[in-house]
């Protein structure tokens, strides 16, 4: 198997697809499956046969289209007609009208153009369009072309240069330049070298990586193969949450297919390059997503981070040089190799290129999975894409960056999505969670909730995170039950600053973000709880009376 073989498969597949006039893509990802997506898929299969249109209409199982609140979602091509909340009962009607008579069924269509207008789909380029369980589908849209290009025309150094020139930064949260990281591992002397793809998306309210793996597993694998070629690694691990059965299944299938087509294993595409891939399952520990914790977890130990240096680029898995990269970063790699770093730079901002996937949830009209260019403002995300706040309620805050992100008020909605701007306002990119809160949420309680989360997920190794967060939580318990005192605010601030600066890993260092941002932007709510002993949102002070 070599480049021309891949091109041949792509041509054949495209030929095969062209034979169909219509293509019905049924989203079968975690957002839609619980609501009967597989039943809908089967109903479409049956209906297409019933009406005798199976020759002109292909029914395909695909990944996420992004409109997770109105699932199961079905996309009919040509024309990208998106049907929402499809049930097996209305499948016949859709097939009869849309496929047989060529008239889309308006009443079932998702009529919210705004949701997609400001999005830009690079990483999720194939999500909802190809069948993740068929490698041919991926190849037909240019999949594995980038790998072939690397192996046939580029040196490892050249690949790293291309990635560096794209300006791509790590999508796992910290935003370290990807090309630079690859360079560090490539230059490390020790062998063998390893790649660990981070798919341990433990943030509550975040499901971007899962969606990517479910919708386009081969993009992750191809990204790893390219990285492996660039840094001279021959073994990779994908560390994935065990709570993601569909994503695990998709990746397992994809690995088997890639192996059978000689895209994984020895002599890949007829070259000397060999690369092997294994899945490793997380087991419900948020901290395992941390760079050094993921390593010990892959080694089968308690996922406790260790201080850096030594950095994983020099001493990682089994003390060998290791590249740890979020899967979203890896999925960008094939695009950059294929189209060039300069092309990639045309997306996003000059100093922060490309796009970022976000899970948009909370009190918002159009929750779902979105991919937006860097530099878009929060206001655009909340109002233009998200469609604003439902039920006539008022916007109160937007939480950016997961449980250790920042709570930003209305006045900061013009803040841009990029690593530095978010940091300046006290938030982080994190793993890509945006949660919108309305006036019914109490910010003190929100900060308490996230502190609680970080306490539960702390590994218990370092003093600030283990002992400090627990102390902070006690102060919150005082404040939210009416026992707060004014100097508690000072103690909170001092302790938060300490935890922020002294903790061993990113979890502890960012854990006080919700506290610090709520103290910064919603201080009056703290005072209201402490001085007036009341919670205007009506969330706190309730527990005792409810128990009586």
């Amino acid at each position, binding site marked *: 198997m070599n480049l021309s073989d891949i091109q041949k498969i792509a041509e054949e597949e495209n030929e095969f697809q062209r034979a169909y006039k219509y293509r019905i893509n049924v989203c079968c990802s975690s957002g839609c499956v619980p609501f009967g997506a597989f039943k809908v898929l089967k109903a479409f299969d049956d209906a297409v046969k019933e009406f005798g249109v199976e020759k002109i209409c292909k029914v395909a199982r695909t990944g996420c289209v992004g409109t997770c609140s109105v699932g199961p979602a079905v996309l009919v091509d040509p024309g990208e007609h998106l049907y929402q909340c499809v049930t097996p009962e209305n499948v016949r009607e859709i097939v009869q009208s849309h496929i047989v008579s060529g008239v889309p069924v308006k009443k079932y269509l998702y009529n919210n153009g705004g949701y997609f207008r400001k999005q830009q789909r690079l990483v999720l380029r194939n999500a909802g369009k190809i069948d993740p369980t068929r490698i041919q589908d991926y190849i037909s849209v240019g999949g594995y072309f980038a790998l072939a290009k690397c192996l046939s025309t580029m040196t490892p150094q050249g690949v790293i240069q291309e990635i560096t020139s794209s300006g791509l930064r790590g999508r796992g949260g910290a935003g370290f330049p990807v090309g630079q990281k690859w360079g560090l591992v490539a230059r490390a002397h020790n062998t063998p070298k390893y790649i660990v793809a981070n798919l341990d998306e433990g943030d509550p309210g975040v499901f971007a990586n899962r969606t990517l793996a479910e919708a386009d597993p081969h993009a992750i694998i191809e990204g790893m193969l390219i990285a492996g070629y660039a840094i001279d690694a021959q073994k990779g691990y994908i560390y994935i949450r065990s709570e993601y059965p569909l994503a695990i299944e998709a990746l397992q299938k994809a690995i088997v297919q890639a192996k059978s087509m000689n895209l994984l294993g020895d002599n890949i595409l007829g070259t000397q390059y060999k690369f092997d891939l294994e899945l490793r399952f997380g087991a419900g520990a948020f901290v395992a997503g941390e760079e050094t914790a993921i390593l010990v977890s892959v080694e089968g130990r308690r996922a406790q981070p260790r201080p850096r240096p030594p950095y994983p680029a020099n001493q990682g898995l089994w003390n060998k040089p290791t590249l740890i990269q979020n899967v979203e970063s890896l999925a960008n790699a094939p695009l950059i190799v294929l189209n060039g770093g300069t092309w990639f730079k045309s997306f996003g901002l000059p100093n922060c290129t490309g796009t970022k996937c976000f899970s948009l949830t909370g009190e918002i009209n159009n929750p779902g999975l979105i991919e937006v260019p860097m530099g878009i403002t929060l206001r655009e995300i909340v109002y233009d894409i998200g469609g604003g706040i439902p039920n006539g309620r008022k916007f109160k805050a937007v939480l950016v960056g997961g449980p250790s992100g920042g709570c930003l008020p209305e006045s900061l909605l013009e803040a841009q999505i990029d690593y530095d701007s978010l940091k300046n306002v006290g938030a982080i990119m994190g793993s890509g969670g945006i949660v919108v809160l309305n006036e019914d949420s109490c910010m003190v309680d929100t900060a308490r909730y996230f502190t609680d989360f970080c306490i539960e997920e702390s*590994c218990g190794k370092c*003093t600030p995170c283990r002992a400090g967060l627990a102390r902070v939580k*006690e102060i919150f318990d005082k404040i939210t039950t009416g026992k707060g005192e004014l100097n508690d605010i000072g*103690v909170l601030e001092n302790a938060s600053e300490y935890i922020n600066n002294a903790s061993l890993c990113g979890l502890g260092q960012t854990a006080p973000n919700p506290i610090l941002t709520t103290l910064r932007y919603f201080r009056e709510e703290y005072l209201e709880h402490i001085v007036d002993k009341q919670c205007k949102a009506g969330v706190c002070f309730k527990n005792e009376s409810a128990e009586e």
Partner: protein
Amino acid sequence: MTTNSTITLKIDGVQISVPEGTTILKAAKNNGILIPTLCDLEGLTPYGGCRLCLVEVTGSPKLFPACTTPANSGMEVTTNSERLKNYRKMAIQMLMSERVHICAVCVANDHCELQALANQLGVDHVAFERNFTREPIDSSHGFLVIDRNRCILCTRCIRVCDKIEGVHTLDLKKRSKNTEVIMDLDEFWGDSCSCTGCRKCAKVCPVGAIYIEGEAITQTKNRDVAEFITARRNRK
């Protein structure tokens, strides 16, 4: 990783030369600059958990644990700024309020590293409300006793048990604030089949969490034991 080459750095303004690969902690100690530590113990693998030994390195906004960070050529290290002093006080306060630390009735009174640091750093009170945990004391072993209410989770006992004695009877269970030191499958110490009763855990415990029944604390505590054995093992 020790090589023959020597590097030069500045610690608290003092020019210091050490072999490459030396940690900041050791480099400072060899030159008479003492950085407070709790989890670190010569002879054991550095842990980096207690955060007492954090130092500032000019040019980096981050703080570095001196026990694990190697000294680099040209580094300028500050070990005792006002900020670091405050942070160390904060760490001690958090540890003292985490569990039951009542010096007056503790077996390790006057021979406790936590108490000594509190005194040395001038932690004259604890700003946080104290927790009064109530873990049962395990005195099922013939002579070793563990009172987890006094444990500060420095893991010295675990590391000495694994690295020096080599049996790994001790480890941690759970995580977060629920983390505890356990024997085998969280058994009573007396029921542990792997424990050899070597007492090293009691010797290195910085506080009064592990002690020997009926023995004076001055007799038990011997925090140099790990360093001594390691040195003996490494002798040519």
